[in-house]
């Protein structure tokens, strides 16, 4: 299958009319209520909102980890609806980058091996050079260190580099500053902004942290499963 769309038609994330209900019977929770969101390549979008408002559910459906009850999701021009589990896995591997809370690096791997790992999971077209990318996120000097020898901010930088090494169309970022102090938070989010703009990635960041929103192009607020624009 071809997962790489031609550069001219490269698109980011298009979500339209997506709803997701958790639970069954009487105790249902509407996590996403008719949510629509478009993120273009090179655009850095933040989603804020209280806990349980559905922010992470939005990441889950955008990343193909959860199936919405209705609506359509397109990543890099590929419609996720009706995709088999295997094709979704393949899409996640080639088109989507995840940045998790506190990096979620593999404990056994050095920083540079964290970046090599995605290429061992399957074929990747035109990946970025792991050492160059580490250099770009300012981590080249720590390339041979394992996560337990890295600080929280350093782990997050490696985590960002790992998500970008396959040149994904979409970068999904979950609370990247949850474990960081203020100045490191700014460093990490400005790095995300730089990478988003510099490599034409559509980036969606879910966060609690109001302080870092200045780096974002657009901020949405999520309230009880509905999404609205907060600032442009």
């Amino acid at each position, binding site marked *: 299958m071809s997962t790489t769309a031609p550069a001219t038609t490269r698109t980011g994330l298009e979500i339209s009319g997506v709803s997701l209900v958790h639970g069954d019977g009487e105790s249902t929770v509407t*996590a996403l209520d008719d949510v629509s969101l478009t993120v273009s390549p090179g655009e850095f979008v933040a989603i804020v909102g209280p*806990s349980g408002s559905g922010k*992470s559910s939005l990441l*889950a459906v955008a990343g193909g980890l959860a199936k919405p009850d209705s609506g359509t999701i397109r990543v890099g021009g590929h419609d996720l609806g009706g995709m088999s589990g295997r094709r979704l896995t393949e899409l996640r*591997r080639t088109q989507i980058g995840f940045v998790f809370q506190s990096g*979620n690096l593999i404990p*056994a791997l050095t920083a540079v091996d964290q970046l090599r790992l995605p290429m061992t999971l*399957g074929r990747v077209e035109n990946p970025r050079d792991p050492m160059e990318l580490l250099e770009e996120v300012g981590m080249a000097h720590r390339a041979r260190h394992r996560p337990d020898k890295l600080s929280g901010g350093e782990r997050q930088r490696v985590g960002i580099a790992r998500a970008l090494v396959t040149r994904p169309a979409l970068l999904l970022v979950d609370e990247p500053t949850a474990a960081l102090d203020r100045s490191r938070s700014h460093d990490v989010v400005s790095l995300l902004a730089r990478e988003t703009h510099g490599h034409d990635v559509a980036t969606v960041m879910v966060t609690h942290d109001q302080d870092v929103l200045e780096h974002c192009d657009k901020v949405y607020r999520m309230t009880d499963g509905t999404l609205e624009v907060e600032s442009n």
Partner: protein
Amino acid sequence: MFLAWRELSFARGRFVLMGSVVALIGLLMVLLSGLSVGLVNDGVSGLQKLPVSSFAFQDGVDKTSAFSRSVVGVETAETWAEQDGVEDATPFGNSLVNTRTDKDVDIDMALFGVEEGSWLSPEATDGADLSGPGQIVVAGTLKDEGVAVGDTVEIDQIGTKFEVVGFLDGQHTYGHVDVGYVDLRTWQEIRAGVRPGEPVPDHVYDDATAVAVKYDADADVDLAAGDKAAETTSMTLKESYGASPGYTAETSTLQMIQVFLYAISALVVGAFFTVVTIQRRHEIAVLRAMGASTRYLLRDSLTQSAILLIGSSAVGVAIGLILGALISSSPMPFALEAAPVAVATVLLVVLGMVGAAAAVFRITRVDPLTALGGNR
């Protein structure tokens, strides 16, 4: 292999610990295998080396103690020799006696009575073959006990004397004692308790323990028909091992221990990989979110278990072989053979892999969604 190797070396303390357990099980396997082969040899090597295809015992004899209970008429051998496909048949005597040499060496001996010069009469590799009454050919291992050609062996109580004329090649034992071959007529006298010089009633020469039957391995011999004609109960040579004293009890005990060891090793390896997999749960969720397929994750984990199992059983078996070589030179019944050791090693690895596979299968149930933080 990328991840499997790095995780092995990262968590090497844990894997070395587990590897030592597998290595110890492997070591124990080799020693048990050597012990069971050794015990089998000690119990029935004298039978194993006979050129016999089957034995015809007294009709309806207890099969677990046929050699000590059975009595057949010597003329039965003629009936058996006439059966289709049978090459030859000859009477065979077998009894356990206590003896003492003229150099005061006490020897418990399995006395095999054969017609001298018959196909059942053994070939001595040292000294001379059996050629008449008053001679005995004994197991080669008795040389280590100080027995030499020309020594006199006397049967306790009865007082019959034999001159050692020859030695057989290596170990010949039956029921854990050394074998000595004597001529059938003298064997019959000893069996009847006739002392030297006493008059021998004629009927003493009528009986033997069994009829030894020889036929080509490919020959289609109908043992049931032969039994019917000769009024006997036949056992193939292999089946007759079970009629050797203690043989069935010893081998089944050791087999049971081995079966339990295999089960334990599968369980231990399975339990280890269950714990490892549970500890890796979050990491596996991250890998799945990153786009690792189930096949990749299974292959990664099973590669790890294969490396662990093959590496550590090789170490354990190697140590076992070295220790075994040392034990072999001691009087303990211990013998290493390639086939049982190879089978034990392969079984250890295969059953360990089964245990690991059962544990690692949990990977398929890890939800990649759990990689995202708790606040959904």
